[in-house]
């Protein structure tokens, strides 16, 4: 994940997958599909997600809800990658300027994607326990792309839990 590339407009994150081109307008992600004229049902929820990320970023630096510019850029890029994979839009929260967290919930389990300046971490939990956690961008092995593929399959087959980060990392 390279935050330096986020500002290019239009920005093609994974041009080989799905044939989509992402346009970042004022930090808002919109998807322009090159292969179909059907409206993308995810676009509106991703627009709301990017608006929330923008508000977190635009708040003043001494505001407790503020996120750093680099973290904002990376989070927008990750959101673009999730939209590209047609993964349902997550909810978002932050705990300070150094990260934001994408949060999916399937009624029983939570999936978290913690986005730092240039690092990503994933975790799966249930009400009773933390089931798995992994850094996707570990120095020895970057599995971010594999994670996105796995997550896409998870949401097609069975939400959240069919992705096993440890299996992917192995």
């Amino acid at each position: 994940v390279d935050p330096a590339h986020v500002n290019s407009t239009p920005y093609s994150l994974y041009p080989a997958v799905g044939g989509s081109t992402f346009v970042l307008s004022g930090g808002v992600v919109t998807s322009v599909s090159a292969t179909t004229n059907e409206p993308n049902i995810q676009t509106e929820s991703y627009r709301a997600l990017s608006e929330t990320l923008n508000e977190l970023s635009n708040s003043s630096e001494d505001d407790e809800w503020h996120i750093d510019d680099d973290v904002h850029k990376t989070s927008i890029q990750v959101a673009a990658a999730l939209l590209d994979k047609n993964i349902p839009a997550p909810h978002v929260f932050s705990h300070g300027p150094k990260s934001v967290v994408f949060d999916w919930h399937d009624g029983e389990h939570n999936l978290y994607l913690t986005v730092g300046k240039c690092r990503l971490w994933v975790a799966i939990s249930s009400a009773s326990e933390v089931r798995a956690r992994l850094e996707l961008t570990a120095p020895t092995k970057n599995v971010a792309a594999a994670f996105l593929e796995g997550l896409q399959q998870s949401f097609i087959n069975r939400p959240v839990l069919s992705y096993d980060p440890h299996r992917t990392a192995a």
Partner: protein
Amino acid sequence: MWGVVNSERVWRSAVFPIAFTKKRLSPKALFRLYGAEESPFVLEMSLVREKYAPSLAMVHAFGCRLATSQKQNLIAQGKGADRIYCGAYQLRVEDIRCLSEEPQLPEIRKAEVLHVVEKGELAHAHMQIEVDTGGDKEAIEPVKTLIVDRIWNKSAGPARHICPPDSHLKDHPSGALDCAPNGPCVRPSKTSVLVGVILCFLLRYPVLWAKLKAESAVAWAKTTLRRYRKAE
């Protein structure tokens, strides 16, 4: 700082920027962890100690004062008063302390709830968590995520509330607060509230007041002694 026993309950006030309440903000956003002044590896979160705010009215009064104080700070900085209190979630102290035994969170060295009077709020408490990520400051972030996850899964409520100054709002965001996974909050009986209030006003508050006065007197004496020595 005074110890808090495991059987006690604490509350987390839900204060949001108004602009965020209708967007894709996760309910976990209100469980915000801050790096302590002394070290980024010590994480803190403000809470309300139920023992010192034994009725829901007192918990909500705390939240309304908190939102008002945050609004005043924003106005003083020349910004809009974009904060609103929506209610509070309840937690057991024992569940917070058990974080240090979570097998998937070996980074947590210690999880504690401390009664720390802050800005004149006698019921104010701190959740304080010490983490060890081998000096990697960025690696604190996923640990924070899982701490928030554990706390959210152990929380109950919400107890929703509209502060009097916000009563004119048509779509007050308190209605949008998500239900916590641990069910409705435990409301103390009227008798225990009455006993708690009486004890607070007759015993605990005077003792706390005396302790605060004693601490400030000691600080004053130390400063005076230092000045006296310098003058000598």
